[in-house]
């Protein structure tokens, strides 16, 4: 008798699981109002999407699922048709994505900028430097500890291009590739009392928690443009192309562009992004 009751209990729990699973399956019908957006962790971390997406949903009726990954992975998700639209910042990779027939309707959205932050005692002597090439040169010469994303992200690619321009292939005990996201890299650089290249949004959001200070900033080479691209519907007929187009058009029009322009001013004292859609 006791055993019987146990079996009934197990059966009850299992049927509850099945019911919830069915509930999820039913959601599939709403897929045409669901838009899957792959974007970079730095975009997600900036909090901008939390402000934009509810407005977008209110205006158009599309719900957005955000998948925040590295730029490399975001692009692969698009290539595999696992998402409907991507919002990334790696111009060369974006152009290759479109040229390869994986994406259509690429539009500029906005840009932000990067800066080099470092310890307050500034061992490389670069505080106030506006030429990022000179700054990196001095870091390498003094072998001051520098933390690199090392993950092929948009930020890492930018850093590598800058080192190329310096004409140095950074290596040695002072150069540490951590292969992690921007937030983790900031945390690690702070622990190691090191220099690192960081996007302004992540820096402003976290600066109160850490001790590193801006060292070199303002170089045009540190501007970082974002593009939005729809996954090519000719390649995957299951992608939500209507939703992707609605998202792209909404992003480049006045309302969203204005929201981007003022985002961060109230909270952090400076804007995080500069809208630049045409």
């Amino acid at each position, binding site marked *: 008798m006791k055993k019987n009751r146990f079996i009934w209990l197990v059966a009850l729990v299992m049927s509850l699981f099945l019911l919830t699973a069915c509930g999820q399956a039913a959601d599939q019908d709403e897929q045409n109002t669901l838009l899957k957006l792959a974007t970079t962790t730095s975009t997600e971390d900036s909090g901008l999407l939390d402000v934009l997406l509810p407005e977008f949903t209110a205006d158009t009726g599309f719900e957005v699922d955000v998948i925040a*990954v*590295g730029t*490399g*992975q975001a*692009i*692969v998700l698009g290539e595999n048709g696992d998402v409907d639209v991507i919002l990334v910042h790696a111009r060369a990779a974006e152009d290759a994505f479109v040229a390869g027939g994986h994406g259509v309707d690429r539009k500029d959205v906005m840009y932000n900028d990067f800066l080099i932050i470092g310890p307050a005692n500034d061992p490389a002597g670069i505080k106030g430097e506006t030429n990022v090439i000179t700054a990196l040169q001095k870091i390498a010469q003094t072998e001051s500890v520098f933390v690199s994303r*090392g*993950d*092929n*992200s948009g930020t890492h690619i930018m850093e590598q291009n800058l080192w190329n321009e310096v004409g140095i292939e950074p290596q040695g005990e002072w150069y*540490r*590739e*951590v*292969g*992690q996201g921007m937030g*983790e890299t900031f945390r*690690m650089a702070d*622990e*190691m009392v090191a220099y690192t290249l960081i996007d302004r949004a992540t820096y402003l959001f976290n600066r109160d928690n850490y001790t590193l200070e801006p060292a070199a900033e303002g170089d045009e080479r540190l501007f970082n443009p974002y593009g939005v691209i729809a996954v090519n519907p000719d390649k995957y007929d299951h992608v939500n192309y209507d939703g992707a187009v609605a998202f792209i058009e909404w992003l480049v029009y006045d309302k969203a562009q204005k929201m981007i322009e003022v985002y961060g001013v109230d909270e952090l004292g400076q804007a995080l992004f500069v809208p630049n859609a045409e």
Partner: protein
Amino acid sequence: MDVIWQGVKEGFFLILSLDQELVSITVLSLQVSLTALFIAAFLGIPVGAALALKKIPGKKMILNIIYTFMGLPPVLAGLLVYLFLSSRGPLGEYQLLFTPTAMIIAQFLLALPIVAGLSARAVMTQRQEVYDTAVTLGATRRQAVWAIIRESRLGIIAAITTALGRVMAEVGAVMMVGGNIKGKTRVMTTSIVLETRMGNDSTAIAIGIILLSISFLITFFIIALEKRSFKDDSSIHIV
């Protein structure tokens, strides 16, 4: 499917080419996980045996806590170790953060409850007869206890292999306290995360295959030892 296939192929090429970076990642993975496991076994088996055999006040509660910690999320273990080792933390002065030592500490915390909890279980399943027989045969109390632990070795070995699986496969803790620094604290699981994030799916699968192969070899070795120690007389024959 192509990606998986290519990953398998690339995996074999990578193993055959003995890629320098891959070798050092693999060696570091083994160093960290095996050291953590060794320390956990060294402390966990006696603790487990003591919990099973001795009269300790609050024993049930202690066991309950140990069983709960068997499910400790690796990221949480990592976060705790991070907060202790951080330069702002109580042990910050030792500068252990982002070193293999930090990774060993975190994995030790994950392995210890598994070794202790499952060892306790294994010893508990032994019957009174084992102790009584040993005593009748003239064993001292100490020798009789040792006999019980020896009789539990199958379960204790299972505890160790389970803990090994846990630490070898774990990524959250080593990512947090090791920092995945290239050439310093990057291990196989953190490489898999990194390669996946970079969109190099086949390389990630290749490293995964190496990881599983190594786990297979270690388990194979442990089971071979176990077989030898039991000869064949312990296996159950169903007729």
